[in-house]
């Protein structure tokens, strides 16, 4: 059980929790006290039924200052960024952005929920391809994704149809400014 904000001990170097909180505050400037737990985000979320905690519950964790619990949830990975929650939140809390912030936090402190595997691998594969070529190419993307996840037989039926319709290029080209793109990746400090 994490302490409430009021009970929190002052942060010192060794205090992992405090570092986590600090990092999160840096990533998200939302005021979670605004959330009334009305559940409208949960009600409209297309993926809520697949999540371990509904969006409103994730916000509740943040209100209770249980940042780590929120970052360890599967919910943040199943968020597809459709923005319905943010659009309909009566209290104007940017829930979708919060999910982004929590994912980034989870990555930094390697708190990713084990169930995030496929989705995270896909994001990472995609970004790795972009870092390599400057643009996204589906062939290397799918190849790298399959290698990461071992889903070798997924879409075996679709793939050839895509190919014969000229939707998959086998020989991706790099853009001229690829180096600049790579530096941007480096500076953004996103672990891939």
């Amino acid at each position, binding site marked *: 059980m994490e302490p409430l904000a009021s009970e929190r001990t002052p942060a010192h170097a060794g205090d992992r929790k405090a570092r986590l909180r600090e990092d999160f505050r840096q990533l998200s400037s939302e005021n979670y006290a605004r959330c*009334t*737990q*009305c*559940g*409208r*985000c*949960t*009600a*409209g*979320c297309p993926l*809520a*039924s697949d999540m371990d*905690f*509904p969006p*409103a*519950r994730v916000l509740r964790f943040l209100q209770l200052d249980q940042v780590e619990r929120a970052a360890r949830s599967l919910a943040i990975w199943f968020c597809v960024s459709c923005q*319905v929650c943010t659009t*309909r*939140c*009566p*209290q*104007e809390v940017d829930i979708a952005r919060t999910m982004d912030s929590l994912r980034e936090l989870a990555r930094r402190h390697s708190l990713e929920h084990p169930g995030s595997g496929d989705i995270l691998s896909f994001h990472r594969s995609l970004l790795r391809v972009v870092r390599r070529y400057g643009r996204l190419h589906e062939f290397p993307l799918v190849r790298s994704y399959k290698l990461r996840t071992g889903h070798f037989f997924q879409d075996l039926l679709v793939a050839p149809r895509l190919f014969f319709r000229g939707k998959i290029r086998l020989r991706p080209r790099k853009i001229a400014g690829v180096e600049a793109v790579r530096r941007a990746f480096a500076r953004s400090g996103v672990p891939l």
Partner: protein
Amino acid sequence: MSRVGVFLCLCGKNIGGTVDVTALGEAARQMLGVAHVEDATYLCSHPGQEQIREAIRTHRLTAAVVAACSPTMHEATFRRAAASVGLNPYLVEMANVREQCSWVHRDVHAATAKAIDLVRMAAARVLRSEPLYPLTVPVTRRALVIGGGIAGMQAALDIAANDQEVVLVERGPSLGGRMAQLSETFPTLDCSQCILTPKTVEVAQNEKVRLLTCAEVESVSGYIGNFQVTVRLRPRYVDAERCTGCGQCEADCPVGKSGMVRSEFEAGLPQSHRSAIYRLFPQAVPNTPVLDPETCLYFQKGTCQVCSRVCPTGAINYDDQPRTETLAVGAIVVATGLEPVSPGIYGEFGGGRYPDVITGLQFERLLSASGPTGGEVRRPSDGRVPQRVVFVQCVGSRDPAKRLPHCSKVCCMATAKHATLYRHKVPGGEAVVFYTDIRSPGKGYEEFVRRAIEEEGALYLRGRVSKVYPEGDHLKVLGADTLSGEPMPLTADLVVLAMGLVASPGARELAQRLGASVDEQGFFTEAHPKLRPLESFVPGIFLAGACQGPKDIPDAVAQASGAAAKVSALLARSEFAREPVIARVEERTCTGCRACIEACPYEAIEEVEVATAKGSRLVAHVTEGKCQGCGVCAGVCRSHSIDLAGFTDQEVAAQIAGASP
């Protein structure tokens, strides 16, 4: 030689906690003309006031500065205290070191420094002040009540009960307001019409009450005790004297037969329609129908005239013209009520787009025995009896994103009532309520809600709804149950939106005409949120019912009676004393340039002839009764010949000078 006393209030910790009162006292002692300084924990308390009286006596003070809260709070208190020991109340000046210092500044040094300046400003000002004596003005012993809903009617009847004349102005064609549209009332479930109609009749029959319907306040001038109100009366096109209320015109009107026009009284339910000449409801008071030229075939197409042909008494008058009437009244009660937010601002619910998504008010009409379905709950789309009704609360309430942050107060109870009545009428039906929090303070209210849940079997789910949309001939409701933490998508036959409540249309404009102020939702601002909830900022203008904020019937009635009592107290006297803050002319220097006359918003200044060595000349002259003390005249006078008592050039100048150490 003036001797100013400075009194410092700590207001418990409210001031003492942030302002270093000792340092403040030290500084005050050094100030020009200050003869005595003392402090107290609560100056406004009895001992506190006694302390002031005592000091004025023993130190022979000629003026006083009270450093405490806002003058709006206690200026009157301290001035009374001073007056009681013979010090002219207008020689008491307040320094607002609480609202405008200790409560808004956290740094002790900054707050103290500011407090010192504020006291110095007040002391400098009061040195230039002179004694003033209250003026008395005559009172017109007649009241105006704006709005013929339950609050307006109650206020009118209570004032009349004190043998005082009342003019009741209603915008619509008849009395009753929102309450007339309700089916039953919580928590007792007695029929709204049944308890309302006797009151409407009472109003109509009371000879102290003059009822003006189809009437709106066009302009207001004057001041407390002496308002001139111009009322605009829309043509009714039916002669009330001749009309017997037989209803023949209404019955034969082709527009009514065509069913083209939906009835506003039925909250625009598709099943409802009205004639072009109509009464809001059968028991309407007055019972004279009104003709609506917007929908009347004769006015639109020049043909028809059926109503005038069938009228047995020839009461129909197509040439009826709008009139205006000016009333002299001593006091005004605003009782303009509220209206539900339009469902249109929530596209995700499709209210007004999908026929079976209706508002709470529409559901009231479906439940009402006098409603379009005769009290049977049938859905607008296909007339089927809904087997599951989903009630959605907080639509247009507690929603900062839609600039509607306030709680509408009555929806929780109204929804519990709707669920209960639905279960009574459709025993097999399911009532599901999505709520944010159940707010049921009030006598028997919580018990009523519990009954709805425990005995009537309404299923209450704590969560707001994200979206409502048609699926087949049902509706899909995307809700959530935050207590189990699960999304809760439901299928429903009928969805009822508990729309939030805002001030009735035109409230803002009316407030402007009255010189009163309203908040973001258009609700009238009371003179003090706690201590003067029945009064507007404008002396002589009182507030009754939901025009001041969402209210249920008992609250509206209670506030109406309260406002009425205040009006009666005011009208009880033929004269009343008012603040002597008015403009004064120095005739010797007045050049008669007329600048003040042009500037005065109240036409309170006129030219008069004064004798001079060589004949006579024209100078400005102030009519005390009309002057409201705004001081615009003093602002424009180039020769400083007209000044405002209580806010003289000298006083203000001194106060400004006092701001610098």
